[in-house]
């Protein structure tokens, strides 16, 4: 199991330099196994977002190591050349707001990534439909994002995050705009998907409703992570 999922060791992120240097991340250590859903909890300014951006390869960490699957992607510097391809193929994103592309229908929103990667349209759409079916929104496959409810949009967003079968999914407050019932549904889906596609999922949240569902939780305070056991409550 150690060789799969995502592992983060001693990750640091410094903004500025010299006297004005501020460490947003001082010492982050995390490990999420495939099929596992962990929570990342912390107050505002604790470095949650910075960590997420480092994990999402949109900002550069200052030091440490990140291992994705068998591959060391960061070790005092990026070890992959194409961060875009890394994001596209290895990392799935689910945001607080779904951020679906408004001019594409549901299927194409999900199928977009494989299409851009050069997968034939038909094949990409079939893949998307499969995921939409798994997420139980296949009946809205032809609708435009604006016609969907918030929960449906979030499910489509999850489908998009999963479409390339990435080893890790970063979910940034995925349940924030939802009521508890729908929030629970989303968490259940994430768990189902994690199991089904052997994906490591990190859910950044401060939603009290869903925190009890995690088996493991990383707390982050002042740029330092602390691991603790969660309640692992069933959400049925």
């Amino acid at each position, binding site marked *: 199991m150690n060789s799969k999922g995502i592992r983060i060791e001693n990750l640091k992120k410094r903004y500025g330099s010299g006297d004005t240097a501020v460490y947003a991340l001082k010492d982050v250590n995390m490990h999420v196994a495939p099929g596992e859903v962990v929570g990342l909890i912390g107050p505002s300014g604790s470095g949650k977002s910075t960590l997420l951006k480092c994990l999402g390869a949109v900002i550069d960490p200052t030091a440490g190591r990140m291992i994705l699957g068998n591959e060391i992607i960061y070790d005092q510097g990026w070890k992959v050349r194409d961060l875009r391809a890394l994001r596209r193929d290895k990392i799935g994103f689910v945001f607080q707001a779904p951020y679906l592309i408004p001019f594409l229908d549901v299927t194409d929103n999900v199928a977009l990534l494989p299409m851009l990667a050069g997968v034939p349209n038909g094949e990409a759409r079939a893949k998307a439909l499969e995921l939409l079916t798994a997420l139980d929104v296949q009946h809205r496959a032809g609708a*435009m994002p604006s*016609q969907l409810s918030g929960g449906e949009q979030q499910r489509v967003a999850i489908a998009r995050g999963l479409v390339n079968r990435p080893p890790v999914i970063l979910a940034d407050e995925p349940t924030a705009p939802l009521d508890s019932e729908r929030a629970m549904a989303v968490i259940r889906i994430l768990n189902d998907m994690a199991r089904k596609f052997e994906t490591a999922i990190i859910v950044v949240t401060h939603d009290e409703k869903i925190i009890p569902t995690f088996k493991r939780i990383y707390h982050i305070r002042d740029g330092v992570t602390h691991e603790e056991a969660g309640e692992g409550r069933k959400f049925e």
Partner: protein
Amino acid sequence: MKKLGLQSRTLAMLVVIIPLLALFIYVGLRSGPLAPVAVTVVSVESQPVTPALFGIGTVEARYTYKIGPTIAGRVKHLEVQVGELVKAGQVLGEMDPVDLDDRVRSQESAFRRAQAALRESIARQAYAKSQAHRYEKLFAVRSTSEETVTTKRQELQIAEAALSAAREDVARAQSDREGLVVQRNNLRLIAPADGVVAVRDADPGTTVVAGQAVVELIDPKSLWINVRFDQINASGLAEGLSAHITLRSRSDQVLQGKVFRVEPIADAVTEELLAKVVFDAVPQHLPPVGELAEVTVDLSPLPAAPVIPNAAIQREGGNVGVWQILDGDLRFSPVKLGASDLDGHVQIREGLKDGDKVVSYSEKALTLHSRIHVVDIIPGVSP
């Protein structure tokens, strides 16, 4: 339902885009230089044409009498006004005679004096004759001398010579007097023929030079039109042809006439032929001399031949011809032109036959590569 939403949007877009594209293609191909040229087509038909010549001229009087004194003098009185009809021999006016009347009277007296002298000569001659006769008888009976008889004979001869001198004197005095009377009469301005006073150039009191006209008379029956025909369009002009005359002041009225004479001398400067056209019947209201008239002279009708409108005649690379339509294609056919009439019909001598289709009107100049589009009427022309 969501599928439908997408489809209806696609449909709506097609509804806008397709007409737009169709319009664009239409605009690209149907207007501007790529558009086919609209043409109208006529069939060549045999029909007779009546060629005619057209010229303009001015009304002139064939006989104009300019009446004036033969010697310089002053106008004494002038009775006629412009427009009055006068008869031949009518006195129109008179020049001031100055001393002519006195001279006539003096000649009168000289004549009478000569007559008196004649009477005296006659008396003397009669007496001399009787004396001579008596002495002849006396001499025959020898009662007088031969010398005396000879004297009496001589006296008779002298008396006879004096008589004939007196006679000649009377004749001279008479001629002198008559000459003066003729001169006196010549001061009267007398109409030489029936006519209308056209011009009155001088009023009483005006001094005129010898030969200057005081009054001009025209003969209304002799009005004719001096017509000018452009040389290039005047073939066939001859005497006796019938003509239609339209006076400028009576443009709705066509008067009949005929060509009276074609002038032997043409106008070299204006490149025109001159001809005189007379009215068959001079109109009731006389046209004023100098009025402009349009004259159409009919030439004899020509037998039927293929005819095209003159608008169809084109020039292409040095050849005169027409654009002919053969199986929908455009072809330039050179033709030889024959006679034409004033309505624009031109007979074809060579190059076309009846039933051929030729382009009469076109929207723009045609070339061999023009795409054409046959219409009944060229766009923009009001029917």
